[in-house]
């Protein structure tokens, strides 16, 4: 048993740090630091191109497809260092979600057609899973895809589509057979967002930002060659994808960065008086989070270690999701509580730490809702781990 990174892993970490220090453009880093999403598409794709140029465009892909061949631990180190350096998160929908499905279930033609655009930072992908009434109960989805010659005709609505307003492509779960039980009649298909009949309406969120969309499909015609695998087997691919969505689910790096920033803000506010971190009551709340985060990092590494041996992410990821999101949310509460009445302002210009703190507090409410609500995660633990 050894909880420390090996010398090789430490050398790798230093290499990543070095790369981030020299290659992450300052204007992108500063926008990320300010949570300024005015250039979100450009920033994320530019960073993807820089990563690709370094050969790190797809940490988790097999080397055959242009991936790094890194171990799970290296991937963990990489993602955490990126968070700590205020680098943009890679867009998961392409690199982490549709790509593994393509590599596992796509045809050679599909792989050749779509994977380069993902790793090279050309195509923006988004996800068409949830529908009105089909959130946690995803298998009840209703959007229709009817075969018509060499095409499918899509009709229906997707909701909680993240950042689809910038997307070139969307991967969708659609119902191709309404006569069988829900899981059996679903297919997985790739749709060009420029197709006629697609309407995207961004939803204004409680923090005033536009991060999710409703998307309507009105007789959208999609070439049958865009179907992944076999018709009506989409549920299998969807579950496979959801398993892959879960890397970095604990958000250790983001939480560490959040605590660093809490210290920075506390020190800056202290010019007018004492540092709030010298208040034992507030400091105890901070210590509590630090402590839980330290434990969660070890728990995360334990899960990674077990996965590397068993080759399958297990229901343990639900624990990481629950505690990880709780910690991120609590750090956002600490930011607001540190700022106190200053956190009331919500429409000052973007360069204001109170505004960022308040926006983050509001926005991060989503963490315990999206990606499988924490209630669903507790159900999974009860059923899959505890056997209840």
């Amino acid at each position, binding site marked *: 048993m050894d909880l420390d990174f090996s010398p090789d892993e430490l050398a790798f970490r230093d290499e990543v740090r070095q790369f981030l220090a020299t290659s992450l453009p300052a204007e992108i880093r500063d926008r990320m630091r300010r949570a300024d999403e005015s250039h979100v598409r450009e920033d994320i794709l530019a960073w993807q191109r820089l990563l690709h140029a370094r050969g790190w465009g797809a940490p988790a892909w097999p080397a055959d497809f242009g991936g790094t061949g890194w171990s799970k631990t290296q991937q963990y180190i990489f993602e955490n260092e990126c968070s700590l350096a205020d680098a943009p998160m890679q867009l998961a929908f392409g690199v982490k979600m549709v790509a593994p499905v393509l590599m596992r279930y796509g045809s050679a033609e599909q792989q050749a057609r779509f994977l380069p655009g993902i790793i090279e930072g050309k195509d923006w992908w988004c996800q068409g899973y949830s529908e009105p009434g089909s959130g946690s*109960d995803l298998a009840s989805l209703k959007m229709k895809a009817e075969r018509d010659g060499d095409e499918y005709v899509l009709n229906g609505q997707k909701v909680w589509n993240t950042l689809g307003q910038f997307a070139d492509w969307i991967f969708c779960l659609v119902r191709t057979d309404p006569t069988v039980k829900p899981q059996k009649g679903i297919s997985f298909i790739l749709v060009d967002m420029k197709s006629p009949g697609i309407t995207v309406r961004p939803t204004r969120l409680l923090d005033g930002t536009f991060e*999710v969309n409703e998307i309507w499909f009105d007789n959208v015609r999609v070439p049958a060659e865009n179907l992944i695998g076999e018709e009506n087997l989409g549920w299998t691919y969807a579950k496979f994808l959801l398993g892959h969505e879960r890397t970095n689910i604990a958000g250790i790096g983001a939480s560490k960065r959040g605590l660093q920033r809490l210290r920075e803000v506390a020190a800056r506010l202290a010019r007018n008086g004492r540092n709030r971190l010298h208040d034992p009551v507030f400091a105890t709340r901070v210590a509590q989070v630090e402590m839980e985060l330290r434990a969660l990092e070890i728990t995360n590494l334990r899960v990674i270690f077990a996965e590397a041996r068993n080759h399958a992410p297990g229901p343990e990821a639900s624990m990481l999701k629950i505690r990880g999101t709780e910690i991120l949310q609590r750090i956002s509460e600490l930011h607001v*509580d540190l700022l106190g009445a200053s956190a*009331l302002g*919500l429409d000052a210009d973007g360069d204001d730490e109170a505004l960022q703190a308040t926006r983050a507090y509001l926005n991060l409410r989503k963490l315990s809702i999206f990606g499988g609500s924490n209630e669903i995660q507790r159900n999974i633990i009860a059923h899959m781990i505890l056997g209840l």
Partner: protein
Amino acid sequence: MDFSFTDEQQMLQDTTRRFVASRYSFDVRHAIAATAEGWSRDVWAQMADLGLLAINIREEDGGLDAGPVGTMLVAGALGEALSLEPFLASAVVATHVIGNLGSATQRAEWLPALGSGDLLAVLVTDEGDALHAAFEAREERGGWWLEGSLQGVYHAGVAGLLLVVARTGDGTGVFAVTPETPGVHVSSRGSVDGQRMADVVLDGVHIDVSARVGGEALGPVRDALDAGLAALCSDALGAMERILAATIAYTRSRVQFGTPIGSFQALQHRMAEMLIHMEQARSMSYLATAQCTNPDLPERREALCAAKALMGQAARYIGQQAVQLHGGMGMTDELDVSHAFKRLLAFELRYGTTDERLASYREHVVVA
């Protein structure tokens, strides 16, 4: 011990509830929030017609004098409606200061206009700490020079009369300043709850000696802020009622896995806990109302700190759970839940944060 309301108090509550039910739907509020000023002068005039702006004016000054309990009931109904109007700032706090501190002339000049809605006044001071004066007043050449600045004063951007609290050298004074006075800079911005607040800068503002409101002002300012705090607590309780009712209704109607999610026991228990928080908050709102005029200041302060701190905790729990139980819908701007959630967040931060009030309470009751 008596938890009933008088017929007059009940009537005041019914009036306000009927008014917001018929004139202040969620869509109306949404439209008002989107305007430049962020509140409605038309609604304000209707509130004046109903007498709601005169409930903190004494009868001898021509008001309804409904007292803390009447104010509690009106503020609660306005909070439930998530009202954006400056009721608390003008019709409670500023009205209080003028009524308690102003000379007969000043009262006669301003109170009728406040009650009729023609004048909107705002007390410019740190609402979280009556002892903290952000402004300095210097007497000179037959008048007063005012200097200082303060951020985040609710509704100061639309006030016709700024009642600036300033240190005078030998105490605390309140000074009536119109926003047009040279050297007065008021810049409005939005608060997280959709109301407007302003940063107020007084840069060498000179006013006439007669602009001072009454004499030593610390007591009346503290009394007015305590009345404001009690009303704010009631406002928050209204928002809690709104958000809990919305959550119950949502979970009853939202179907997942073939059943309403409100039938899932884990969610039921969460809502039961929300109810307990809310009923404990209601008790504390009553306490704040009963104590905000207590002449025993340490006793009053202890009670108000406890009320604000406990209600702040309830606001956080209820607000967060309401959003969570609404799922993705709770994250959007489209339902009332997120707006009530943000109003509850503002409640936590205003008039002394939960942390600050709990620390004060602790020093009063535990260490003492």
